[in-house]
């Protein structure tokens, strides 16, 4: 049995860990945030009467199976202090936050959440996947007080409290870097009105809204009858030094547009775009199907969003000839792109991975093949592509072991 280390507990990290664990190896996943599962847990299923192949369910299944796997352990709130890759094994030292919840022992009784005096334990559940997260901003132990209420309440020994931090010293035969991504903060594009105008949301927020309710909320606080998707917010933008394509925004926007149209056929849905990136295996019929539903496609990205009369949002659109037109919508969804995760540059430095000018690792593999990267930290990619890249990376780590 070999030991592998995975940095990042998102869908890529879990998918790779699962492949390695299935081969009989032990895997430790380090996660810097208090929560496990990553971004994918906040995405909604975008099926209408038929599946739109977004991959959210596939990701949930992989994470749920990995959480129950006896050879996979997870440390949340982990900070890596030092990495030594010079020896025969890669050693990684650091500290992990406490309380630490072991999800393979957790039986979802909720006793910890009820016992927590600061109400800082949150439960997430969907299908066969249930996770608990300790919010470090309210947790008494994290704030330096002595508290072990959750650990004492747990009848299954699934929570470790004690000191607020626990050092770890791990030695691994291979490391997979899967630090994932952050979404672009549209506040950096103030003219689009995000954070100022009611009814302007990011794609991620729209997903959350659609997983709870049928449609979106407009600028006047009522159900939106007309929704605009603005593509390439924070992508393909040389002014912001972000002249790369985020690859997934067309996919989620078009799938959401399809979902909105299927739920509310009377709603007007418009997609403002530069180029539609192709994503499904059989893309042309998929795109034509969306057009047939009545989703309108308009070339050109609106330069500003402002409050218009009658409780609507006014979009200013300039065509290449300089002609200005305006359009009014109830709600605007900004299809925000991806950036490398905040800690990615530090991880790159620690593990000696090269990163491009935007901070993505690209298709790089460090010399001995012991440290590989996969998922959205490599380049922006979809859930399914991330899982495939995780499996390819796992293969690479195993093949390295096989030939050594």
């Amino acid at each position, binding site marked *: 049995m070999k030991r592998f280390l995975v940095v990042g507990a998102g869908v890529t990290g879990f998918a790779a860990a699962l492949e390695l664990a299935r081969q009989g190896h032990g895997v430790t996943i380090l996660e810097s945030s208090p929560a496990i599962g990553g971004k994918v847990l906040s995405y909604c299923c975008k099926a209408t009467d038929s599946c739109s192949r977004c991959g959210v369910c596939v990701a949930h299944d992989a994470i749920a*199976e990995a959480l129950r796997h006896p050879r996979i352990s997870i440390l949340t709130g982990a900070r890596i202090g030092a990495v030594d890759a010079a020896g025969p094994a890669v050693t990684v030292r650091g500290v992990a936050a406490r309380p630490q919840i072991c999800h393979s022992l957790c039986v979802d009784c909720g006793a910890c959440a009820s016992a927590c005096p600061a109400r800082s334990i949150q439960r997430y559940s969907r299908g066969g996947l249930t996770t608990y997260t300790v919010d470090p901003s309210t947790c008494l132990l994290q704030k330096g007080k002595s508290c072990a209420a959750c650990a004492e309440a747990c009848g299954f020994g699934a929570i470790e409290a004690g000191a607020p931090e626990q050092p770890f010293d791990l030695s691994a035969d291979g490391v997979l870097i899967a630090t994932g991504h952050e979404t672009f903060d549209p506040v950096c594009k103030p003219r689009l009105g995000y954070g100022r105008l009611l009814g302007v949301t990011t794609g991620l927020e729209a997903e959350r809204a659609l997983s709870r309710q049928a449609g979106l909320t407009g600028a006047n606080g009522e159900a939106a009858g007309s929704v605009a998707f603005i593509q390439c917010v924070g992508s393909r933008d040389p002014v912001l030094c972000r002249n790369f394509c985020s690859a997934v925004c067309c996919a989620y926007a078009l799938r959401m547009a399809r979902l909105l149209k299927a739920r509310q056929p009377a709603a007007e849905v418009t997609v403002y775009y530069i180029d539609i990136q192709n994503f499904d295996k059989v893309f042309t019929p998929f795109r034509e199907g969306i057009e047939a539903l009545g989703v309108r496609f308009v070339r050109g990205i609106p330069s500003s969003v402002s409050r218009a009369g009658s409780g609507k949002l006014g979009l200013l659109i300039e065509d290449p000839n300089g002609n200005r037109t305006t359009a009014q919508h109830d709600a605007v969804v900004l299809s925000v792109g991806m950036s490398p995760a905040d800690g990615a540059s530090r991880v790159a430095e620690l593990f000696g991975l090269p990163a491009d000018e935007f901070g993505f690792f690209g298709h790089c593999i460090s010399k001995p093949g012991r440290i590989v990267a996969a998922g959205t930290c490599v380049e922006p990619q979809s859930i399914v592509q991330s899982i495939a890249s995780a499996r390819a990376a796992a293969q690479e780590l195993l093949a390295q072991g096989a030939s050594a």
Partner: protein
Amino acid sequence: MIGVFVCSCGRRSADAWLEKVGAAVAVKHFFGHAGLCGPDGLRLIREKSKKHKLGRLLLAGCAALQSEALIKNAAKAAGVASGAVFPVLFPRRSSPAVAARMIRQATTGLQLLPVFESRRVALRNEVLVLGGGPAGTEAARQVAAFGYPTTITEPHVLESLTGGVGNFSARLRGEGGAATRAFGAVVIASDGTAGAASSAFRGLVPLADLEGHIEGLARRDKPRSAALILDLEIDETKASTAEALRVALALRARYRIELTILLRHVRVSSLGLEKRYDEAREAGITFVKYDGAPRIAASPEGISIACTDGVAGEDVEISVGIAAVSPHGLHAPAERALGEAAGIGLDGYGRLQENNIHLLPDQTNRLGVFVVGPCRGEFDGETILRDARAAALAVHQLLSQKELEVELSHPVVDGDKCVLCLTCIRSCPFKAMRIFAEETRADCSPEACRRCGICVGECPAKAIELPAYADRIVLARAGE
């Protein structure tokens, strides 16, 4: 003897709730536990099964109990076949009455359910890779690195692929006639057939040949302008944009040719591609994003292309000395022959493998057969290599088990009713149906079958039955 194991996890007053459920169900062997999916749950299952000689287990709780791995582990702990373990999934916060009703219904069905035997299927370790392009070579190299004897051959030599996972019989055409060889797993990595420039686009050069074509012309014959046309019939991927940019930039630098790239959308969803697109525009390459179908005709200068510029919304006409078309934008001849020989379904483009999210970029409708590369519709070099590696790992995950335990709960065909109409063979998505050796009836391969029940529903003679869903069991459960 049926044992009912109820998981009370996620409930506040678990003991009181369990007591109420137990009283309402009123079966002899009723056990409650918080966290049946955990190690303590398995221990309880092992102990109670041994003590009470339980032959069938009902595991009731949340959706976690549905996991195949968990059911296998529970069956192993109890020393019964996987088919004797039955999950019952409660809705969240279900009352004792609801829980008890669900358990009673399930036990009624379970009492009638036959206990299925299992069969161990040995997995051969030979692997066949069809296709010697980048995808096939990489897959073969990685599979061989895990120590499996690997055969690599051209895809068109495959005549048929019968048998099932772990023991496929591949009939391969050779110089001295066809020969049949046995393999544990198969990777199909054909380079595919990109659309041939059809007669409607006569006079156009395939994109890949454009550079060589211009290079071959005498200096005075070299065209002054060239057009590259993408997305003609179907939307192309980033791989085509990357190739068009590469060709255009090279021609521009070498021969100072005026270049126009016509496409519907610039597909740049790959790191660095957006910057290469900027570079191309700076180098003076013109991009026309067209709507509708462009009209291509011969002109005195060479070729004229008329289309609607989607950005400006105006009709434009371009005359160029030479024009190239990307074959990936044309409807390709379907991979029907290869699909039929290998028993793999086709997607809407006629490429291998239907479009299903649960079949990740290498898996197929046949367990033990994997498809990667252009024949699946993936043309980007980096992605092709990635998928080939993922397929190699999938082969290893499968074959490293050495043998597969298969529960014999597959559909049974009534030989008296079967009229050999072949409907089940046509309708089975997994190529699990075949004609019984003595040709008296259809028969199902338990390894390939996924118990979907389509054959049962489709059989016009009502000759097929899925034993776990036999009429009497379904009726008994519905009658509760």
